[in-house]
């Protein structure tokens, strides 16, 4: 069996450290703004949104074509962002820039896909940038992230350059997985604390429970941010993995990205409850509903959940309501989505809403915002050039690194194992304890 090790096993190439702003940025206090009141859903789950889409989708199998139809009003006005309780101006601007990076990176990927440079499928997150970016932004350096396919923005916040994603999608030999795994399936256990997702939906959640358990044995309470879709949350592993965290009060923060569609299946055909945050009651953890196109709400809710995790109080669920603005992948034009629904959400573009907020707060002028776009564009061109120029993997890499070398020590992540051992030394159980220690 090959324990051959190639030069370096796949993990993040040299990347910058995850930012250390977020929850620890006490030096730049948030600007206090009046908070609109917080509502509750029928089950008592706090709902931070400033609007609730006054429509829903129904299956319409009556006409000539099967289709989904909208019931209700899609023309309601767009509310402003909820002011953040925690974000400073600098942090807000950083989140804004990350959202633009997220979007431009995916625009570049889309072009590259159409030029046959991308290998395999391409999954985009247009309209979901606020959720990816602002939630990941709430994590500390020692916390962990368990992304899903559409969380390229979270990966960038965590410290990956866009070229990493591009090289992944182009299957380059210098991609984080050296061309071994596809698209968003990359991660780094050493520096960036990002779990490499697998395709199987929900399978990372239990892993993050384990990471939190491992950290606890090393005397640390950390937050582990997991994402799951409105579709993916239907799997058993989602329940099994998260229940473990709930029972053991491990700091798993589950962000349910309720983007209204799972491939072609609307939420109405995915689950019977109205809000997925209701599940928090069943798990016995706090749950909250936020507007997923409002970066402030997403940040604040995640920040509170992360703080809770750091205090050792356990897991939380955040349901972010938003919309997947493109098809499931590039081959899918999402014609099954009624156009009125698309238009409703187009008016709630998270970046446009953020720009409105920046204007209202006076934190940025339109010209400054244009400059951010242009600066990111230049950065993205460089990243793209670099990714395109990167070599494909050499064939020998296919079978190396299947096993990790036993000669290499695997360090413990948080220093040392520190258990309280409160009950150690209590009397041994009555029945036959092993002879050699009795």
């Amino acid at each position: 069996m090959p324990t051959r090790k190639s030069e370096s096993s796949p993990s993040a190439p040299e990347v910058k450290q995850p930012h250390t702003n977020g929850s620890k940025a006490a030096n730049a206090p948030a600007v206090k703004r009046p908070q609109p009141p917080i509502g509750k859903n029928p089950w008592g789950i706090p709902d931070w949104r400033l609007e609730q889409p006054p429509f829903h989708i129904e299956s319409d199998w009556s006409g000539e074509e099967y289709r989904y139809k909208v019931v209700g009003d899609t023309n309601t006005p767009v509310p402003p962002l909820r002011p953040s309780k925690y974000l400073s101006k600098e942090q807000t601007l950083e989140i804004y820039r990350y959202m633009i990076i997220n979007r431009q990176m995916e625009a570049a990927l889309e072009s590259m896909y159409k030029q046959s440079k991308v290998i395999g499928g391409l999954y985009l997150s247009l309209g979901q940038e606020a959720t990816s970016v602002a939630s990941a932004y709430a994590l500390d350096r020692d916390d962990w992230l368990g992304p899903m396919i559409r969380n390229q923005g979270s990966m960038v916040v965590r410290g990956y350059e866009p070229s990493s994603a591009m090289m992944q999608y182009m299957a380059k030999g210098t991609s984080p997985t050296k061309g071994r795994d596809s698209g968003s399936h990359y991660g780094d256990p050493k520096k960036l604390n990002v779990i490499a997702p697998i395709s199987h939906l929900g399978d990372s959640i239990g892993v993050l429970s384990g990471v939190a358990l491992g950290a606890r044995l090393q005397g640390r309470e950390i937050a582990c941010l997991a994402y799951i879709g409105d579709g993916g949350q239907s799997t058993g592993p989602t329940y099994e993995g998260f229940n473990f965290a709930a029972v053991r009060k491990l700091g798993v923060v589950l962000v349910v990205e309720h983007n209204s569609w799972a491939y072609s299946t609307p939420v109405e055909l995915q689950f019977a409850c109205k809000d997925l945050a209701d599940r928090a009651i069943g798990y016995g953890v706090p749950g909250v509903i936020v507007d997923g196109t409002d970066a402030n709400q997403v940040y604040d809710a995640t920040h509170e959940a992360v703080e809770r995790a750091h205090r050792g109080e356990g897991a939380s669920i955040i349901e972010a309501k938003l919309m997947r603005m493109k098809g499931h992948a590039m081959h899918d034009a999402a014609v099954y989505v009624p156009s009125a629904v698309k238009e409703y959400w187009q008016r709630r573009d998270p970046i446009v809403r953020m720009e409105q907020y920046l204007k209202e707060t006076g934190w940025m002028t339109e010209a400054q915002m244009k400059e951010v776009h242009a600066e990111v564009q230049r950065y993205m061109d460089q990243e793209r050039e670099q990714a395109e120029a990167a070599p494909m993997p050499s064939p020998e890499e296919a079978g190396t690194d299947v096993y990790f070398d036993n000669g290499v020590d695997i360090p413990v992540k948080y220093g040392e194992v520190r258990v309280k051992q409160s009950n150690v030394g209590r009397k041994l159980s009555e029945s036959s304890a092993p002879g050699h220690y009795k």
Partner: protein
Amino acid sequence: MPTNVVMPQMGESIFEGTITKWLKKPGDQVQRDEPLFEISTDKVDAEIPAPAAGVLTEIKIAEGTTVEINTVVAVIGEAGSQPVASSGSGSVTVDAAKEAKATAVATAPEGANEPVAAPGAQVSSTSGKEPSPSPADGDPANRGPEGAPGGASTGGTNVVMPQMGESIFEGTITKWLKKVGDTVQRDEPLFEISTDKVDAEIPAPAAGVLTEIKVPEGTTVEINTVVAVIGGSKSSAPAAAAPKPAAAAPSAPAPAATATQAAPAAAGTHDRIRSSPLVRRIAKDNNLDLSRISGTGMGGRITKNDALAFLAQGGAGSAAPAQTQSQPQAAAPVKAAAAAAQAPAAATSRPSTPAAAVAAPLPGELVPLSRMRGIIAERMVESKRTSAHVHTVFKVDMTRIVRLRDREKSKYEQRNGVKLTFMPFIAMAAVQCLRRMPIINASMEGNAIRYHQNINIGIAVALDWGLIVPVVKQAEERSFLGVARAIADLAARARAKKLKPEEVSGGTFTITNPGIFGEQFGTPVINQPESAILGVGGMFKEPTVITDADGVDSIAIRSIMRLTLGFDHRIIDGADAGKFMADMKKTLENWDGDIG
């Protein structure tokens, strides 16, 4: 430094391509990325740009020829190079190519063997003084998945039909948003497509002037088909819509010449010798002729032990066992097995002189076992190992039968054409007694006993070269004469080697008659899978006490014969054997059967 031009791989599953057109001729100047030739493959037709600037010095593959990918099709020399005349085997100049397409074909396999990574090797002899590095554009690693020629960044970028979904293999161009001559920006919408899954606007892959639209609106093409070119000089010869069918499709090269020459000389006439991979290896390593070894394995298979025994007795061909030490690897099993044979407990110790242990046979001629001998040896040992042999001997007074025979034998032979011997008497008695005692006519099968429906009596026949047991089938249905005839016939044909295979199998009980040599009695070995065998001892005149009807004893001279029953105690107990033999004795002593 000359640069080789190779047939590109236009798609993962593509392994060959046809050159449909050369756009340059030897002696022409070419720019890097300038269209050089056109190809057609199963997936896509494409214009292939030159990998380097210089002078086209040589065209190796003519139009209309199909070659494997990575075959060198042309050579570009440095500026100022002269076109070469036919140089190196199989190379053709463009003139030659026009007439001799078949010759070009012949070069294909040669070029195909040459990986692109070592292009220097294919450089023609006049110009190839030093190996040239692999041209960047020829490096497959720089390509997209389907080999889209996206590597060319300046002076002509091909625009291809994208793959919009894993299962999608074609798309329709619904609209061109630019026309030839327009300047486009990178990522600026260039055309619209429609596929089975999605409709999309496709952005330009590079900035530049749209120099050529190859696929008009409304046309459906496979993915990765080049639909337009941005930048570069306009091709003077617009690509024909359809690739030219490989017109004079040259017949496949005929490597038959070499294929026929090596008819296996060994395909001889001798029978297949059953052995094993190991035995064949031992034979090879020790130069043994397997046909000289008789096998003791199932169906006469030569086993390892047969081969080793043969070797041990000096039966090797030219190589003595000691010599095999020069091939330690090959000799290992021989040694190991030999070692195991002498010292089973120390099987792991490396025997240093195995030959000495086995190589001192007593003087004498060594004659290999005949096939029959081998089978007999195997069967006998197997029987001894299988059955729990027990023997019981009964004395039978045959006087009555002897008298009957003496009286009848000449008439009998005249009447029936068969000698009247003692065997049919014994066989007929056995048939009757077996009927009354079915356990003697049974076999053990796994955890069960099979009581045979028929009584098939095997008769052991001694031959000069061994022993064989033909079988009188369904003896219970035969008359005395029928049995007598059958025995005589089988024995005669056994000696004439005329028995059929089915006549020597299927027995349920065997009678062997070594008594003719004067023995008292023997202890015969059961013929598996039967459970009993009757041994017939010699006939002797013996003083015998006889008791008359009144109970008066007297001594008389009687013809006495000893019968032995060898039986398998696994299923036959001594009492049953005794009962059977007592019955036999009674039947024979009081013979009253019709002899026909």
